[in-house]
């Protein structure tokens, strides 16, 4: 699986969204992306990419696009 697929799958599985919903998706756009969903999403991404995210990055992770930006800039995950 590509990094993009791993990334997308974490959203789809944890937040119960479809592929079509991913682009532009922001925190609290869907009911499942609340604080509980956020914590599970981060846990899923940390395990998918075998990384440990910093506090600043976890709370800065406010959208689908922002998350990719953070992972590629700080955690060497290439998309």
């Amino acid at each position, binding site marked *: 699986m590509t990094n993009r697929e791993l990334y997308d799958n974490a959203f789809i599985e944890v937040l119960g969204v479809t592929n079509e919903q991913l682009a532009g998706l922001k925190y609290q756009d869907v*009911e499942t992306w609340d*604080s509980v969903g956020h914590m599970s999403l981060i846990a899923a991404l940390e395990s998918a990419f075998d990384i440990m995210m910093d506090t600043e990055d976890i709370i800065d992770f406010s959208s689908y696009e922002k998350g990719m930006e953070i992972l590629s800039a700080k955690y060497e995950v290439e998309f």
Partner: protein
Amino acid sequence: MWNFAEHGNSTAIIDEYGKTLTYRELKTESEKLAAIIGKRCLVFSLCRNEIGAVVGYSAFINGDIVPLLLNANLEKELLNNLLEIYKPEYLWVPEEMVSEFQNMSEEVNMQGYSLLKTHYKVDYHLYPELALLLTTSGSTGSPKFVRQSYANIKANTDSIIEYLELDSSERAITTLPMNYTYGLSIINTHLMVGATLLLTDKSLMQKEFWNFFKSEKATSFGGVPYTYEMLDRLRFYRMQLPSLRYMTQAGGKLTPELHKKFAEYAEENGKKFIVMYGQCEATARMGYLPANKAVEKCGSIGIAIPGGKFHLIDDNGNYIDQPDTTGELVYEGANVTLGYAECSADLAKGDEWNGILRTGDMAYFDKDGYYYIVGRKKRFLKIYGNRVNLDEIDRLIKGRFDGLECASAGVDDHMYIFITDGSKADAVKDFVANKTKLNPIAFKIIVIDEIPKNDAGKILYKELARYYE
């Protein structure tokens, strides 16, 4: 309840958008709202952590008007059901929600909230001491509410102020909904001592929360076990929060590992970590573990709050006087509420509990008199700090899915819903998440051949436990 005049121009509230309200303004605004209503009656207040919601709440309590507090995001059908059962004279709602109530007339708009007049025929009475109605199980929209008196709120507020040593220099930031008894107790206490409330509905997982926390120099926050799990994941221990004085925890049992981590963090960083115990039935708080015992008595709910008493009873109702012996925890104090209401006629009822509450929690005390909760007698779970009645969930599911066999069980933060028809699994999960407004991550559907029952047709929940323990 509160004498806002004595705190003059001190800041009562600051919201996340920088809007502030002094105690003088809070007094003026709340008196204005109470005067518009002009008489003792029942008001449904749909709450968010916003200035308007606090102005409304203080207007009602100080103005002898009885509010029933609900979360503004309560599912519409559940809200309509409660409206029909309780027939309030007014609703106090965030202004954006006004269009959802077309058959009501808007009387006034203040601080972003609107007062709506309903057209119910009022055929019930309000007991003179009745101050407030709070839900026992908010998320399922159960019509069962706790009836709190003015004396209950005053007694519990004074006690909390005493053991947390609160004064006007405090600046508490909201992390809990105000319609939730624990969140409300933070508002009650801070308004009483003339301190400042930092109001936000942002979560710990949002940058805006922490920016607000730091810029307004929050001194305390409260959290349910799930809050502390999130903080742990955020590696809270490394955050620089010089303004923070203390953290409280309630709303369920924290794992001993997390209790220890936060107790040690507090000790090493000159902060306090205070684990507390309570229920809506006792206004809010019944027990607390003093900060200086947080490490030594890790896992304990502590001792009774000032003015209250704990004891344990065995199956026959006899007192247990030996340490390390489990029994049902019983609390006595002036904060034990009047009783429950399940319909509008119940609002006329007086004090049914007479200051004694059987908590339904099983506990023991150690040789030093510190109490430890070990289990529960009743069938409910705490999910993200919200009490969720399992029988109520089963009833809701059966009401929606005709003829479906189901039984729910589980442990805190993880509910397991057993059904026999696998084709309904996704629909049931979506339905429960939507009704409770809780994240579906908390619910797991397990399809089994048959729901285990005894000869009398009673569900054998213990046999279900093997699927998740």
